[in-house]
């Protein structure tokens, strides 16, 4: 159990490294006065004061070689000193604290919905490969996978919110508001996870041990519960780790589409405004959220698959 934890800690450090290097490059590519605002904002100084400017200059090591400046940039990053937003002039940490809740709600709701939609249908299809449900689900899955998330979102808005007026298309605060964006993400996730579940089901039900369960004399339901379910669940949960990439990317797009006040939305806005501290903060937190969710998948895999615990 030590190795996977170390692996995720290393991944978290890599996320910080990548975000740090890229945002540092971003800051250096900005016109001079923008860089001053970044620096000054972090220290809360009034940049009209020449003496203070000199102080900032020295403390930020902006006139020093890039390598040293990068080091001090990382120092701030690792202390989670993320600075102040250039737009709102509020500390980045405070802004993100507000947005994080909204994004986590969205991501977890989407994940839950996708798990309720995809795997059960996939298992049913896999129990009768080549049957009607299997073929219908295959066609549906390949069509849905050809739809980018924003297209799924547009179609849902058009269908559910505009034509039928069932759900609010955008907004935040009420329970109903989370349904459309979460469903958008969940449909994309389920389109893939139902195929994974279907293939896993076929592999398990044609395996030597499933056959042995039958010839041992177990009733079909007993055999499915005792030897099918767990073995089917392992690849599905493992694949969930791969799908997290899609989830995090989807959060960026879907939050923008539905004007959902989360981190993805904030990241896009920050990029448009070239608000470097906010870009750094939001990208870092999204990256860490990715690592954390992956760690959650690790834990679930460990709980499901005893082989992971013994090896």
């Amino acid at each position: 159990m030590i190795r996977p934890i170390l692996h995720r800690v290393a991944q978290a450090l890599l996320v910080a490294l990548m975000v740090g290097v890229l945002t540092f490059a971003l800051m250096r590519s900005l016109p001079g006065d923008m860089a001053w605002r970044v620096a000054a904002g972090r220290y809360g100084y009034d940049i009209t004061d020449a003496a203070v400017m000199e102080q900032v200059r020295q403390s930020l090591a902006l006139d020093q070689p890039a390598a040293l400046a990068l080091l001090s940039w990382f120092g701030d990053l690792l202390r989670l000193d993320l600075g102040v937003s250039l737009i709102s002039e509020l500390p980045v940490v405070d802004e993100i604290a507000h947005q994080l809740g909204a994004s986590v709600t969205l991501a977890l709701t989407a994940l839950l919905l996708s798990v309720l939609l995809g795997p059960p249908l996939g298992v049913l299809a896999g129990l009768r490969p080549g049957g009607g449900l299997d073929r219908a689900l295959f066609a549906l899955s390949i069509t849905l996978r050809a739809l980018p998330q924003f297209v799924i979102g547009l179609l849902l808005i058009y269908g559910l919110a505009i034509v039928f007026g069932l759900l609010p298309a955008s907004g935040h605060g009420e329970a109903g508001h989370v349904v459309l964006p979460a469903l958008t993400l969940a449909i994309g996730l389920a389109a893939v996870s139902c195929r994974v579940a279907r293939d896993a089901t076929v592999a398990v039900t044609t395996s030597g041990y499933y056959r042995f369960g039958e010839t041992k004399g177990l009733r079909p339901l007993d055999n499915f519960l005792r030897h099918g379910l767990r073995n089917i669940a392992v690849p599905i949960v493992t694949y969930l780790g791969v799908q997290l990439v899609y989830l995090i990317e989807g959060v960026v797009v879907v939050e923008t589409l539905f004007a959902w006040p989360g981190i993805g939305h904030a990241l896009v806005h920050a990029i448009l405004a070239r608000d470097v501290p906010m870009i750094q903060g939001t990208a870092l937190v999204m990256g860490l959220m990715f690592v954390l969710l992956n760690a959650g998948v690790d834990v679930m895999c460990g709980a499901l698959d005893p082989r992971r615990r013994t090896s």
Partner: protein
Amino acid sequence: MIRLSRGQWAGVALLLLLALFALGVPQVVPGDPTRQSLSNALLPPGGPFLFGTDPFGRDMLLRLAAAVRLSLGIALLTTALAGVIGVALGVLAGACGGWVDRALCGVADTLLALPGLLLVLLLVAIAPGRFWPLYLGVSLVLWVEYFRMTRAAALRIAASPAVEASRLLGFGPFYRFRRHYWPELAPITLTVGAFGSATSVMSVAALGFVNVGVRPPTPELGQMMIELMPYYNEAPLILAQPILVVVLLVLALNLIAGGKTQ
């Protein structure tokens, strides 16, 4: 060497049709996809403009063709770049093993630490409106997939008696690549390449959709959607066009990749 299934042929046919559309339209219908004409705004399809016009009176037919050229161009370039690098390094890692393998896997793991779109977004933020961050970002994301798949296959092939036999029989590394590795890697490369192209098309469209990708007035599918979205009621057929084209592009590429999950 690679036998295509019926679904894959359907994908190839659909992709060829889209490419024909993208390259053929400017030959048949001369004009500038960025020229505005406010008196011709939001004309329905079938009139003087075959596919209608957008809110700025620009010809949708020309814009769609240009947007498909852009998407396919980026996809082709990034996939080819990522493919050559990814396959070469994957075979190198799988066949050599040892520290070469560990070093290359370390690089791949580093890139995988961050979800791909975040990486692309950060690169795009450094040079907004330019093309190179798009190429670089998408290629960086894509080569890892080539690398991982190729490496896994190469590891298996390198350990096979057939490769050991080939070495004992006096064949060199190039022969082994051509006769032992490539025949097994080719279908993998095709699948990863088609999925990678689909990823590239979707990433570029997603960036356009959130307004940080290719800058207007260059026609880009995601951006066209976001521009046309407010007119869903007045001109649904115009809004449907870029959506349909993205879907057909991704569908064609997914079909070529095959019906498998990954």
